[in-house]
């Protein structure tokens, strides 16, 4: 892989960097440079210090498009690189050979040649002893800075009073590559310096550093020989010049001279007579000197009308003067020869000796290019004619040499800015028929399934016929006439395509390879080493990849055994799940909360329930839910719940698996009973709330990964698009290997920074075919949703709750026989109330134990899970409870859990406070959770911000409940509302709920407006109502 090596002078060090911004790339670059050994026998970067430099640099372009705001000016960026001292950089630059680095896989910037040349210039000066002592500003230690003190350091620098030396110095300075001025300097008056002045300053500083270094080595070598000339500086007595002199001889011990600005100025003036001064830039009044022209040669294709046969037409080579400050400004040679004087003013710069300049450049070019020499046989050289065979020789032999000597050579293609055309292949896949898929080979291969395709050769997006391809491959020069225009091609690339196409016009790859290939960036998308210009897909594959699959599904009828009706979008979801199954893909159903993921999955389970036992893994708190829903929608499926201390192991377990259609267990047990679960044969595995395995390293996740089945589904309600980087485990479960290894995934997608946005976009495209996510807010979905969605959440009692519950029921049943009339009614009501309270939280019943920990109540645990989800979606919720105490408990618990206390409105709250809370809530300020403990009324309470209503406990009068609900559901409510009802499984809550459901379809009067109807039940009815039926959830 080619790494870049750029180098600039920072004033004290030679800073080498890669131009990369991503930390991992910089680290890799640094590591490989440290190992770099060069022919002159050293590793220049081995000990180099890491350094951050602020440079004006281009930001990494997103897919090749430069950023808009950078047209105005490059901004400062901090880049990391290696800083070489003069000691380290000196041999590197003197021995610098570009070809040596390229051979080692490093692409150095062209400026490295420049710095090497400048270093050699320094060497030449030293060879002739053309040095002069001088001084440069130094930093004043902090404490002194305020007092107006300045500091200098004595240095040895170049002496440029020889006119030849000064001229070359100025030429070098003006030829400095622009990158040399990229470092951002924070010095006073920085803004006022011209480009020319900066170039002179940087080059002078560069030369001084190396010369100073070498001279100091020399003084060290001379050692005692210099003792006789060393002064003895005495502060206050000796003049500052003697201190400066000492600094010159101090070897590698730096010695700074501090003084007032007047003293420093005087010193600077005195030592300037020794000739070490920086040559000055041109003043503001004069136009800046132009840096001379660059020679530009343009290859002109022949006129087609000239001759029939392309090989008989003559080409032209035209001569231009390129203005270095603006490469787009080209002056035709004729213009130069036409000048009556030898000076021109171009873009505010004065160019002297323009004709001589151009002439000498042409003469130099003529030395290496016979074609240019041929143009020089007549006055005012402007043009040369080339025969076609000469064109080839020019292109292959002369052009590279000319370019190395700083001559611009333009091909006709440059005029259209298209440059070299890329040759590659386009891949056209054949389609899949989902009806075919699934039949035939087992096991289903999922993403390893094979996709067949045809290939065609393309050039810059245009398809090539076989003849054209052969013709291009036979070209002897990179410039060819193709479909009427001259283009530049890479002949090697074309031949590679031809060779490949001859052998295979058709091929196959896996779906996984296809997905990755399509989503790879321009450079990386290669197939068998060929550049893939595009991938065309049709039919099902196209729908899968582009995400339009929902529209392309074959309508599959809903199984008749489903006890219920699917909403239209749920039907589509079911069909999607089935299609994915037929194709062998693992599927991630990520519909929004409340849209009914469970019922969609259950429908799928019904449609193929002859295919072996299915395993459902879910969080413990959802076991009850699954059981309820399965019995409601698919009663004919035989269910075994693998949970609790009495669960089966060994042989009985295996038998139970075989004899049941569905096995339901928890993540916790998937970890504990991993071995047994692994040994069983599963037809499919379904993960509910799949984010439970997002952390790959947990035991649960690892155990789940080890389970195998030909068919997999994962469900989650969390907003997946915000958490793409957490998807690896889930996808590893669904389609193993699709997203590569965990390590490479982490590296690629969790790096952070600007490149990450592009990477995440790719990731999204990669996972898109396997993900179905619909939002409540989608207009398509909303119309299918009732305005109120009722969701029942079944919770379990904790051990403590179950014990207390039994105590109360036993007590009631033992006393009820003897009581009658009003006493009986009172007994029933009070007992039922107590039972309700126990279901809420034990401390409501037993005031002595007032700790309100969530762990004591199954409902509270479930509530927290619900609220987590609601808050993550950015939504708001109302919680209704009949008991003020429960409300207070919840306030405490939620405050602890979320670090912010929810609003709490109950009968005891003053009107002002009530209004304040309601307003804050509606405006979106403050907490997103509002607890209400009101029996009735509260006229004028508008809480439409919330779109979730949670009934923590129930009124057994639907009318009252609805009224509470409707507080949220009023005019002004724009969202669909979810009404959650928490029901303790196995308790009276569950039974009463069933009763109400049954009687709802009849008349409300049966249930009555209060709860009196409960008291009119017989003792037997009562008993069956309240007896705790546990499913051994503990």
């Amino acid at each position, binding site marked *: 892989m080619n790494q870049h090596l750029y180098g600039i002078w920072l004033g004290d060090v030679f800073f080498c960097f890669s131009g990369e911004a991503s930390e991992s790339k910089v680290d890799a670059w640094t590591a490989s440079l440290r190992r770099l050994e060069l022919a002159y026998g050293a590793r220049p970067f081995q000990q180099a210090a890491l350094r951050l430099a602020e440079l*004006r640099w*281009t930001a990494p372009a997103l897919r090749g498009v430069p950023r808009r705001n950078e*047209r105005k000016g490059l*901004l400062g960026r901090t880049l990391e690189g290696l800083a070489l001292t003069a000691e380290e950089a000196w041999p590197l630059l*003197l*021995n610098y050979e570009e070809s040596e680095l390229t051979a080692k896989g490093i692409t150095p910037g*062209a*400026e490295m040649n*420049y710095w090497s*040349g400048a270093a*050699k*210039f320094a*060497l030449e000066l*030293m*060879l002739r*002893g*053309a040095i002069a002592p001088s001084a440069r500003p130094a930093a004043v230690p902090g404490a002194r800075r305020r007092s107006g003190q300045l500091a200098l350091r004595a240095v040895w620098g170049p002496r440029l009073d020889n006119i030849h030396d000064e001229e*070359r110095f100025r*030429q070098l300075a003006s*030829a400095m*590559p*622009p*990158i040399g001025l*990229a470092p951002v300097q924070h010095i006073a008056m920085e*803004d*006022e*310096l*011209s*480009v020319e002045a900066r170039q002179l300053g940087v080059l002078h500083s560069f030369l001084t550093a190396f010369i100073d270094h070498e001279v100091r080595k*020399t003084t060290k070598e001379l050692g005692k020989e*210099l003792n*006789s*000339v060393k*002064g003895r500086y005495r502060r206050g007595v000796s003049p500052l010049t003697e201190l400066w*002199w000492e600094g010159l001889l101090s070897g590698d011990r730096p010695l700074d001279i501090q003084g007032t600005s007047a003293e420093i100025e005087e010193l600077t003036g*005195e*030592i300037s*007579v*020794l000739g070490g001064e920086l040559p000055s830039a041109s003043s503001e009044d004069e*136009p*800046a000197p132009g840096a001379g022209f*660059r020679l530009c040669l343009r290859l002109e294709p022949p006129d087609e009308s000239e001759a029939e046969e392309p090989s008989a037409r003559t080409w032209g080579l035209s001569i231009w003067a390129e203005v270095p400050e603006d490469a787009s400004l080209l*002056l035709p040679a004729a213009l130069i*020869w*036409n*000048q*009556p004087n030898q000076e021109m*003013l171009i*873009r*505010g*710069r004065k160019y002297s000796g323009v*004709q001589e300049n151009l*002439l*000498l450049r*042409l003469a130099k070019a003529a030395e290496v290019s016979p074609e240019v*020499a041929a143009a*020089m*046989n007549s*006055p005012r050289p402007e043009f040369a004619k080339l025969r076609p065979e000469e064109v080839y020789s020019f292109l292959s032999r002369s052009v590279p040499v000319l370019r190395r000597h*700083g001559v611009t050579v333009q091909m006709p293609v440059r005029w259209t800015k298209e440059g070299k055309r890329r040759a590659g292949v386009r891949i056209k896949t054949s389609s899949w028929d989902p009806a075919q898929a699934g039949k035939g080979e087992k096991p289903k291969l999922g993403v390893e399934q094979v996709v067949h395709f045809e290939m065609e050769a393309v050039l810059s997006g245009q398809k090539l016929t076989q003849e054209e391809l052969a013709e291009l491959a036979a070209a002897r020069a990179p410039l060819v006439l193709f479909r009427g225009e001259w283009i530049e091609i890479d002949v090697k690339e074309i031949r590679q395509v031809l060779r490949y196409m001859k052998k295979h016009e058709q091929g196959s790859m896996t779906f996984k390879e296809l997905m990755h290939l399509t989503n790879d960036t321009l450079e990386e998308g290669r197939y068998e080493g060929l550049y893939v210009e595009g991938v065309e897909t049709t039919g099902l594959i196209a729908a899968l990849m582009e995400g339009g699959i929902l529209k392309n599904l074959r309508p599959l009828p809903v199984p008749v055994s489903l006890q219920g009706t699917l909403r239209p979008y749920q039907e589509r979801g079911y069909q999607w799940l089935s299609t994915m199954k037929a194709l062998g893909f693992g599927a991630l159903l990520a519909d929004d909360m409340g849209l009914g993921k469970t019922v969609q999955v259950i429908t799928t389970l019904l449609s193929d329930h002859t295919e072996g036992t299915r395993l459902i893994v879910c969080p413990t708190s959802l076991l009850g839910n699954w059981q309820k829903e399965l019995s409601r929608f698919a009663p004919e499926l035989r269910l075994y719940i693998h949970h609790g201390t009495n669960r089966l192991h060994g042989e009985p377990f295996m038998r139970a698996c075989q004899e049941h259609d569905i096995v339901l267990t928890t993540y916790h047990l998937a970890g504990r009973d991993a071995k047994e679960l692994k040994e069983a044969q599963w037809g499919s595995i379904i993960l509910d709330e799949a984010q439970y395995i997002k952390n790959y390293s947990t035991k649960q996740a690892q155990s789940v990964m080890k389970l195998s089945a030909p068919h997999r589904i994962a469900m989650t309600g969390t907003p997946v698009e915000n958490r793409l980087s957490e998807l690896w485990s889930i996808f590893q479960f669904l389609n193993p290997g699709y997203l590569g290894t965990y390590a490479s995934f982490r590296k690629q997608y969790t790096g952070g920074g600007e490149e990450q946005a592009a990477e995440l976009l790719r990731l999204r495209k990669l996972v898109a075919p396997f993900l179905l996510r619909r939002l409540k807010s989608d207009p398509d979905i909303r119309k299918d949703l009732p305005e109120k969605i009722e969701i029942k959440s079944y919770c379990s009692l904790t051990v403590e709750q179950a014990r207390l519950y039994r105590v109360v029921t036993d007590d009631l049943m033992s006393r009820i026989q003897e009581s009658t009339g009003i006493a009986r009614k009172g007994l029933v009501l009070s007992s039922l109330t107590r039972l309700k309270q126990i279901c809420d939280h034990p401390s409501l019943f037993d005031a002595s134990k007032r700790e309100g920990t969530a762990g004591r109540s199954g409902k509270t645990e479930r509530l927290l899970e619900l609220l987590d989800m609601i808050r993550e979606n950015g939504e708001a919720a109302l919680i209704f409870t009949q008991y003020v105490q429960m409300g207070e408990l919840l306030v405490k618990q939620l405050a602890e859990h979320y670090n912010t206390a929810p609003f709490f409105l109950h009968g005891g709250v003053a009107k002002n406070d009530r209004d304040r809370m309601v307003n804050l809530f509606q405006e979106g300020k403050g907490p997103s959770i509002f607890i209400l403990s009101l029996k009735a009324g509260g006229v004028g309470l508008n809480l439409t911000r919330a779109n979730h209503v949670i009934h923590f406990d129930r009124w057994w009068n639907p009318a009252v409940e609805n009224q509470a609900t409707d507080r949220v559901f009023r005019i002004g409510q724009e969202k669909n509302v979810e009404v959650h009802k928490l029901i303790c499984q196995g308790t009276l809550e569950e039974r009463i709920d069933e009763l109400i459901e049954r009687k709802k379809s009849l008349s409300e009067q049966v249930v009555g407006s209060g709860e009196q109807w409960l008291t009119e039940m017989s003792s037997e009815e009562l008993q069956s109502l309240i007896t705790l039926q546990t499913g051994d959830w503990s």
Partner: protein
Amino acid sequence: MKKTTQQEGRVTASEGELQVELYVNKVRREGDAADGKSMSPVCTVTFPLAAPEAGLLARLVNHLGSHPLELAELLQGGQPAGAAALLPAEPPWAHAPGADGACSCGSASCAHVAAAAELAAAEWTASPPLRWAALGLAPQRLQGAVFAAWASDAPAGASELPAAAARRGEAGSRAERQGPGLAEWLAEAAEQDRLHVPGPQFHDVKVILTSGEEQAEPAADAQAWAELLPGIPGAAAGVRRIEARLMERTREQARRLAATQQSSSS
């Protein structure tokens, strides 16, 4: 047979005159300052130079104008054969040696004039630059004439700069002098893909690292040092010592560098 010159001298031409400086034979006199020259001129003989024939300049300009490569060669200190062939074979000073030469020693018909004429004739043959100089045909002058001739071929108004070049005249240069201009200047360079590319003059700068003879040590300016550091009388000598040692060290470096480059190119 060409007579070997026993007389040493220096021949220069300028301002319509040919000057021949004659030196005594090489005898190193004791007490001479060690500044490399072991000769001192005895006397100077001058010959007047005749102006070149009228058509010569025109012929040369025509020739060089049609052979730009030769003009380039001339400008770089070379001796283009074709142009040189146009020069007269005979020196432009008096035909007969001895005629009209004036010697600085003042004595009439001293032997110096003859010797000087001989020396001059030999130099004329041996040194092409002398020929051009003697004919008053300095390269700059020729260049000017050639370019003027070329420009005169231009149609009227064809020397106007295109608008793009004339545009952004003063404002551009002023903008480049100000700070924010730097950021834009860099952005433009980046956009044109020349952020890393040295300017054309980079290839013009010739650095010579191999010197045939030992370089003469430059004399550190003793007076300047004495004035600067009155309290350190040996400063100038110290600097000279440093410079000398530096030159030795860097010579060694340059030798090693040349050796490495030779071995890598072989």
